[in-house]
């Protein structure tokens, strides 16, 4: 349940109350931004906490030029990427296989082999296309909402999406052979 709030009212609140609101009403959204990037629930939980710490530290400096969620979304994505970079240092391969293995071992993942193949194909996409995918399927956002969030036109967004679908289909056909 999320209650929309007027940004003027939000600005009047103390920092603690603003954070309370963000934690209560954006945790779930931010979790579903982070989770498909870092794959496991445990990792997503850690990154979500780091994201909130960063939001708390920087909320004073937020100028309200952009939407609050867009700003938090960027922080969540950057935190997830930093987390993956740090993890890569400990990994032997390029990280994709390791991530898939992590996903397999996660008790909160319920996918079969086919879905794991799709995950693998998704990881091979360019970051922007992966991002569009995550927002469309994991955050359950509409094209218009994604376009607003990423500040791109709906047309180019749909083009990127269809290109990504095509790439995944190719990837899976190759895998089938």
């Amino acid at each position, binding site marked *: 349940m999320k209650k929309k709030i007027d940004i003027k009212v939000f600005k009047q609140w103390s920092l603690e109350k603003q954070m309370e609101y963000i934690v*209560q*009403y954006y*945790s779930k959204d931010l979790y579903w931004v982070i989770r*498909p990037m870092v794959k496991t629930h445990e990792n997503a939980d850690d990154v979500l906490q780091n994201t909130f710490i960063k939001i708390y530290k920087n909320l004073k400096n937020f100028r309200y030029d952009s939407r609050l969620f867009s700003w938090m979304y960027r922080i969540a994505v950057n935190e997830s990427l930093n987390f993956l970079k740090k993890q890569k240092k400990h990994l032997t391969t390029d990280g994709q296989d390791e991530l898939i293995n992590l996903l397999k071992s996660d008790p*909160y*993942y319920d996918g079969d082999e086919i879905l794991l193949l799709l995950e693998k194909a*998704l990881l091979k996409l360019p970051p922007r296309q992966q991002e569009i995918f995550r927002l469309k*399927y994991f955050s359950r956002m509409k094209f218009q909402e994604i376009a607003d969030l990423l500040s791109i036109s709906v047309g180019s967004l749909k083009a990127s999406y269809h290109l990504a*679908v095509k790439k995944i289909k190719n990837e*899976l056909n190759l895998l089938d052979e």
Partner: protein
Amino acid sequence: MNMKNKTDIEKYFEKMADAYQMPEGYFEHLGKNFDWQTKSENNRKIFKINTRWLVAAMFLLLISLGWFAKQQFMPKNSLLNDTIKRTNFPVVNQENFDDLSDDEIIDYLENDTDMDEILDYL
């Protein structure tokens, strides 16, 4: 795996997202006890309630004060006294009272006369 068209693959994408689970009730504790009012709004709200009750209480107080004042400070027999002052009592013109001035008679009536007696007389 048979994914010939776009719709098929999109169904798989939906399944891909659904495969991600969360511990049960992971975010359920959130968003239940949030005070939506700002501090100033809260204060204003309390002030509004107080003012409303304060005004109502003041009215009641004034009305009851007025009533009590009427009861307490208005002479009980003021109407009677006024009547006595305005009326030419026959008793004043009787013989035995000829030597008394009007003021003395009024003084006598106000202080020493039993009011029941006067009422009987009237």
